């Protein structure tokens, strides 16, 4: 049940990415190119996704628990730290260079295009690398500080 639900939810997400045009790097990059061939579509994608999610979460998160788990797994941190801001800034640079973000690239794998495979392989390597560096940094920093 859990697996079928997960598959269907992934499919809805992947179909949404495909319909919205966000699997297409040129379309994503043209949103940011206000000085060139501006394509405002990404704002409509974000707008549609945000309205539905904000309304839906209001009802869902009022419940004591999700349907097939004992508790909601929500991020609880509210502090703004350097890794959050620097990491997000770095992510934007990569997004601007390649035109793919993770949520756009993963469904785009289904088109079988080699460019997507190359990007995703590099992205996974970047995640592994960053995890290793973060682990090493955490090991060197005393936890009492």
């Amino acid at each position, binding site marked *: 049940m859990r697996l079928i*639900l997960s598959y269907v939810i992934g499919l809805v*997400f992947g179909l949404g990415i495909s319909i919205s045009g966000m699997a297409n790097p040129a379309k994503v990059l043209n949103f940011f190119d206000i000085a060139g061939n501006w394509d405002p579509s*990404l704002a409509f994608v974000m707008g549609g996704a945000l309205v539905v999610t904000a309304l839906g979460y209001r009802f869902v*998160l009022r419940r004591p628990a999700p349907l097939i788990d004992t508790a909601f797994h929500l991020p609880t941190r509210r502090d703004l730290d350097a890794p*959050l801001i620097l990491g997000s800034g770095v*992510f934007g640079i990569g997004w601007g260079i390649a035109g793919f973000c993770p949520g756009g690239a993963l*469904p785009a794998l289904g088109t079988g295009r080699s460019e997507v495979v190359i990007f995703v392989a590099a992205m996974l390597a970047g995640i592994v690398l960053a995890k290793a560096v973060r682990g090493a940094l955490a090991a060197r920093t005393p936890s009492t500080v």
Partner: protein
Amino acid sequence: MMETVFTPLQSLGGGALIGLAAVLLMATLGRVMGATGIVTGLMQPANLGDWTWRAALLAGMISGPAAFLLLSGQMPEIQVPASTSMLIIGGLIVGIGVTFGSGCTSGHGVCGMARLSPRSIVATLTFMFTTAITVFVIRHLIGG
């Protein structure tokens, strides 16, 4: 430079489906629909049960273009302005950035912003800004 057509209705509708997926995942498994978190958890699962739902979700995501093909008769359009080396460099940078930044456009930009999480709002504003600067530099300063 590759031109694309402004598609307000498809983008709004596709965005609504992305939001629907986020709401359904929270309602059933109680999880945030963030691409970064889902693939990171696949590479570093807490246990087998944690791995399988993520794998099923990813399989569903990858089936998205085929579902689009069934509905529309064509694969979603993919135009890649970046060269192979830019894809590799960009991919590495994205992987590093989303790991330290704890999320990407789906996790911070949709799910976190929808909850009005201060971390997600700051993260989203930050990466939208640096993406715009990067595109401007590549297209208008370097590329010309």
